[in-house]
């Protein structure tokens, strides 16, 4: 019984997934193709991607989270080449304007606040001194926030003793250029691209699995596993498999967006801005060659015309193209992996772009697919685990997004009155109560947003803990004050020494689009 030998079995050839068919190009399709071909291409897996130039891509997710660097690195993408090709800029966080109250502003940074002391989080010390004018805002103790304010950037240091090791970064890029960039990468690793429009999905008469898809020209493409990257339409998962959708519109009622690029204006900022409006919010994403803008709103509370006008009026550069409208329903597929079809990207769900989670959720879908890559005979077990983990991922992101809307004192519109007073999931209200009591953040070691992110949004949106950790009182106030002053000074000086974001980009990864 003890210590069995491995045996000489290898995976039975008949059980192996040999053909994967990805339906839909765009960011989700080509990220999936690039990820799978990089990791499994050498194992004999054949990957076919079907897309049509006649069908536009949504091109969501111009702003990203730091995890994307890991994805790009793991599939061997050269950062400077990628940034130049997609006119990308660096991103140190997201600025939230007018969320707690009109006139408020804070940044959710990709990094830590201050330094913990003997197990007591920095924000407890800050909270104990926040009424002292010299203490200043919590933002003054975060290097990525200060650098953002100065439009500076420098890659983080690997030396853990350095204050420059306290942050990470993401990218802001032209999503319409990311997919073509990845296409080259995928095709060089054997991904077969087929130009065509899907007309029919064939199901197995007994088990209901997808056996093949048929194109407009009559070609039939067979596969063992199908990835639905057809966007909101979900042609495979919904159109053929009728998987169903869990709507979260009661928590996240924004259901439309209007997007419009404008010319660049002002310093090149290393952060995305999300400005709360009367029935939603507006994004501003600075790229090398232009600024991406959009207005996410709830059609229950504002008309399309008014939403467009609010967006165009707020542009800080010249409008470059006609505004484009998108419709969506917040939520997720009941089963992200149903039968032999996995929904990645918008076909799987959409939680609106407030915290730049769209591309992250695509990446997680790919990573987990690789982790639980099935054989034909283990598909059900791998599928169950995948769905369990992805559901958890979506729900934790959902709670974090709801927090932004719910933790507000705004009462200047019907939209904000609804958001402020709506019933929220228990999983979120428990977290909020814990923080209100004494600044504790509910502990999870999985999920996208960890302690510093929650602290940034709680405090940024005026959820100020009633109390703080008692052990703060063990240090004399004078000592805390000196420590805070020293830290603030260190952060400021460190940020000042960084090059400007624009200069760094010009040196490292200039885009031809700018020239």
């Amino acid at each position: 019984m003890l210590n069995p030998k491995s045996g000489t079995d290898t995976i039975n050839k008949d059980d192996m997934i040999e053909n994967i068919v990805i339906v839909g190009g765009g960011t989700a399709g080509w990220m999936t193709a690039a990820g799978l071909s990089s990791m499994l291409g050498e194992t004999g897996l054949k990957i076919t991607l079907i897309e049509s130039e006649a069908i536009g891509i949504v091109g969501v997710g111009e702003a990203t989270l730091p995890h994307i660097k890991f994805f790009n690195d793991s599939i061997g993408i050269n950062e400077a080449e990628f940034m130049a090709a997609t006119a990308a800029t660096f991103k140190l966080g997201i600025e939230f304007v007018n969320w707690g109250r009109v006139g408020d502003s804070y940044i959710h940074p990709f990094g830590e606040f201050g330094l913990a002391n003997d197990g007591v989080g920095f924000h407890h010390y800050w909270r104990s001194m926040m009424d002292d004018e010299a203490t200043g805002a919590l933002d003054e103790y975060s290097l990525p926030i200060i650098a953002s304010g100065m439009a500076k950037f420098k890659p983080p240091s690997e030396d853990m003793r350095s204050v420059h090791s306290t942050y990470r970064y993401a990218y802001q890029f032209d999503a319409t250029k990311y997919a073509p960039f990845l296409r080259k990468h995928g095709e060089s690793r054997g991904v077969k691209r087929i130009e065509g429009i899907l007309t029919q999905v064939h199901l197995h008469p007994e088990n209901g699995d997808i056996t093949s898809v048929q194109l407009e020209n009559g070609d039939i493409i067979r596969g063992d596993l199908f990835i639905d990257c057809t966007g909101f339409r979900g042609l495979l998962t919904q159109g053929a498999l009728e998987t169903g959708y869990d709507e979260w519109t009661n928590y996240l009622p924004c259901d439309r967006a209007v997007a419009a690029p404008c010319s660049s204006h002002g310093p090149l900022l290393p952060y995305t801005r999300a400005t709360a409006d009367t029935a939603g919010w507006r994004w501003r994403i600075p790229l090398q060659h232009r600024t991406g803008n959009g207005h996410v709103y709830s059609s229950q509370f504002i008309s399309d015309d008014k939403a467009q006008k609010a967006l165009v009026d707020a542009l800080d550069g010249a409008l470059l193209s006609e505004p484009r409208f998108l419709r969506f329903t917040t939520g997720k597929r009941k089963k992200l992996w149903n039968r032999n079809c996995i929904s990645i990207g918008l076909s799987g769900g959409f939680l609106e772009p407030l915290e730049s989670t769209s591309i992250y959720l695509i990446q997680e879908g790919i990573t987990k697919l690789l982790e639980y890559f099935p054989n034909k005979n283990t598909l059900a077990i791998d599928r169950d685990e995948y769905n369990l983990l992805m559901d958890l991922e979506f729900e934790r992101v959902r709670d974090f997004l709801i927090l932004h809307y719910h933790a507000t004192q705004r009462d200047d519109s019907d939209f904000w009155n609804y958001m402020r007073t709506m019933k929220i999931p228990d999983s979120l209200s428990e977290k909020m109560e814990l923080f209100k009591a004494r600044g504790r953040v509910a502990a999870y070691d999985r999920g996208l947003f960890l302690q510093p992110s929650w602290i940034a949004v709680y405090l940024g949106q005026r959820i100020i803990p009633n109390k703080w950790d008692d052990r703060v009182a063990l240090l004399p106030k004078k000592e805390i004050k000196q420590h805070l002053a020293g830290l603030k000074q260190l952060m400021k000086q460190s940020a000042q020494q960084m090059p400007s974001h624009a200069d760094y980009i010009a040196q490292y990864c200039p885009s031809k689009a700018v020239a």
Partner: protein
Amino acid sequence: MGNSIEAWLPAAYCCARLPSDDYQIILAETKGNTGGSDGDIVAKPSSKNLHHVLDIAEHDLGSKAHARPALAASIAIDNGLHIDLPFGHYGIDREGIEFQHLWKYSGSQKPLSEFNLALAMHKASVFLPEPPKGAPVYNYGYMLQEEGYINLLKSKARATHITADNITLQQSNGAIDKVICDGESLKADLYIDARHYNYAATNTNVTYTDGNAWQHNHLRITGGFDMLDHQSGMRLHRIQMAMERLFKLWPDREFAAVEIAEYNRLEASQSLHINDMNLLLQQQTQGCSNTLARKIKLFETRGRIAIEDYEIYSKAEWIAAFCAMGINAKNYDRLAHRINSDTLAQWIEQLQVAITNVIEQLSDKK
């Protein structure tokens, strides 16, 4: 309240983390019930963090608690068999692929356990503080002599110390008002009840329920409930984790219900993991929790280890337990095919030879 490690470790921990000018710690030591171990306790590698907090140096553990390095926890199961849960990895992962998949794919005739250097050293009773370069990694814990360890903890606990034959808790509205120790009244802000082996005998009117280790102003600390906890190193680890949780959620006299709920949530999650492992080791998997059933299914299918939030056991410990219980992976991760099979077979063989050589060299020097 209590005795043995269950009481002295929290006392020493509180003394280390709280300044004596601001906090008074009283230990009401009960008699008997020394904790149920056979005189030795297993300290997992994570105990090094604990000893750092307690300012206990390794040489003190050696001289006062007769510490011997441990590279695995040996657990006796039925029929005279025993299982070793290793404190080190199986083989070496390559290109992000876990070793058990590579081993399975390679078709190696050597048992998986032979690729775990910690296990091999444990079996051969040899030791190196750090693995040689390029060998499977491990971290060592200790076997500690319980009495010496308790004395060491006592030396670190600047607690006011009383002994009591009989302790009674008096409570109102769920909170403890005072403790009566042999007729003498004792009042405190926070009560830590470490008398877990004699709950029934205390005849108190306080009822603890599962998952509610902390209620109002009293916190139950337990090192475990049976021999499995002792042998697997969970006794010390449970107490360590309880103290770390308490200090992350350090209360004031108002005892916020939300903080208590958070502590209990984490405690319940940890208990679930421990129960799952214990059920597996006792081969009582029929009708087990969903988490254990899922773990077994995933491992059996393809050698994957499902890891939960705040997982308490390492992947290697789960693999050892599954294999020992005859639950073997039928297949492996497809990613293993990324590595050329001949290259892999050669590398696996070299790895096994390297491990054997380490053991032989150390054995020669014994």
